């Protein structure tokens, strides 16, 4: 029994602790489970699922950058049907909140996906990806238009009573406008941030390194941007925020929580140290003890800004 209460709430969803694994960085949980005890996590978010399976972009999909990486996976995923058939049985074995992340090319498709998935009781919440930079149709075009974000939220909300999280794009002028739209649409929380649009060229062939030309920038390089966007939402919209972007250790997690995050997600770090999340949870508890917080929630948005 831990001396510090690390539990947090995302709408009606209670998490043991604020540490979740980010969409697209742990597939459907199988591989990472060899290094991290899923039962100890606050939650796990699936790779973005689409109505039909997606093969993803041709190679090259990955480019390393200073303290970061670009990815242009193109939402390669098994699709909702195969997810239910092939992936849920594995995830059922664990006592960890499963959050289904959904990506789509049309508003109807988002709704359709939720319709198909909502009755799976192992699925505890939905995270709607309106911000994937790596597919022409989907995501980003919505993510940059406040009205469609509001509309998608409303329609999905009408479809399910499960906690609804809207994952926001950082590639906008004012992310809090989108958080507002999500809130007004009935979302229980927002996730921020998805990747920043970036690119890279081979200076000898003069071709883009990634077949998709642009990709999404993640990793420590983007942490300051992610923190600023979490802070901006926190200061202007009253909605739980799931902080994401460049988290490499427990200190980064604390920084996000101070900046306004109720929970956080670990992404790129899973590739570098697949056992990191477990350690971070323990260290988070030590920090709370040292700082004499008996509940982690006392830390949320506790920034001293005079």
């Amino acid at each position, binding site marked *: 029994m831990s001396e510090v209460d690390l539990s947090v709430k995302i709408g009606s969803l209670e998490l043991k602790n604020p540490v979740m694994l980010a969409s*697209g*960085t*742990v*597939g459907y949980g*199988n*591989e*990472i489970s*060899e*290094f991290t005890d899923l039962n100890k996590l606050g939650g796990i978010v699936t*790779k973005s699922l689409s109505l039909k399976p997606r*093969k*993803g*972009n*041709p*190679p*090259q*999909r*990955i*480019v*390393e950058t*200073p*303290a*970061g*990486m670009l*990815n242009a*996976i193109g939402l*390669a995923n098994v699709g909702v049907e195969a997810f239910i058939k092939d992936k849920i049985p594995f995830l059922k074995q664990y006592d960890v909140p499963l959050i289904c992340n959904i990506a789509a090319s049309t508003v109807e498709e988002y709704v359709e996906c939720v319709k198909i998935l909502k009755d799976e009781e192992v699925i505890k919440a939905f995270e709607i990806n309106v911000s994937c930079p790596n597919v022409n149709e989907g995501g980003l075009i919505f993510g940059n238009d406040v009205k469609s974000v509001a509309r998608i939220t409303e329609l999905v909300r009408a479809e399910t009573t499960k906690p609804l999280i809207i994952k926001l794009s950082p590639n906008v002028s004012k992310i809090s406008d989108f958080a507002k739209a999500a809130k007004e649409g009935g979302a229980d929380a927002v996730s921020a941030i998805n990747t920043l649009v970036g690119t890279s060229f081979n200076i000898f062939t003069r071709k883009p390194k990634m077949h998709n030309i642009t990709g999404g920038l993640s*990793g*420590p*390089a983007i942490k300051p941007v992610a923190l600023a966007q979490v802070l901006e939402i926190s200061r202007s919209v009253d909605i739980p925020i799931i902080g994401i972007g460049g988290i*490499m250790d427990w200190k980064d997690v604390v920084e996000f929580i101070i900046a306004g995050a109720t929970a956080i997600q670990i992404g*790129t770090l*899973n*590739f*570098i*140290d*697949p*056992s990191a999340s477990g350690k971070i949870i323990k260290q988070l508890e030590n920090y709370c003890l040292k700082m004499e917080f008996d509940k982690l929630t006392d830390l949320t948005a506790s920034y001293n800004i005079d």
Partner: protein
Amino acid sequence: MLLVQAPVKETIELDHSIFLLKVHSPEITSIIKPGQFLNIRVTDKPYPLLRRPFSACDVDGKHLMLMFNVMGEGTSILAHKPKGAPVDILGPLGNGFNLDDDYDTAVVVGGGMGAAPFPFLQRELKGKKEILTFIGGRTHKDIITYGMENLHTATDDGSEGLKGNVIDLLNENLDVLKSKKIKIFACGPAPMFRGLKDFCHEHNVNCEVSTECAMACGFGLCQGCPIESAVDKGKYYLVCKDGPVFNINDVMI
């Protein structure tokens, strides 16, 4: 699949910027197979950020050997780890070569650093199969001889062995190869693979290739390492999980 801190036992510079790194890791050596690889975190700092993948070059009891070329930041940090320093290793990863099917003679074909996985493979096959090795490189400096049996060599500049590429070298030795029931195990640059594909097709030889591509995780998390199926167009395998070893006819190379 393990995550271990393996201390450096010895680092040998085989040739200018080609290193053989020997680490102590009984956990890994007891389970790893030829053709599998390891994903190595060279620093705990945010730069360079990603792990670096390396083939299992050789296994000697409790010692694992990696052979690598210093390409950039990651490999240069690795090459300079002092004796005793821990190396953060994730592995064994990938499928590895299939050594057990029906052939008498293992024909090893390596281009440049593509030779890396074969000392281990030859160690495993020794005594069980006959081994013929064909190694090519730009110059004699690129020819890896470490752990190679019955070695034939070719260089683009003719500074060692046949003047030409490794495919020319195979053709030079066609009679010998035809006289045996062979399986080719190959690793090297894309042009070599393409030449080899034609060669195998023409002489209808069974051939497995170990492929490379940029990777983030190395074990199926990121979907970052696709290679297209040659059979089922637009279908992608993951080099890190479904590979890195494929039948040469199964993938687009």
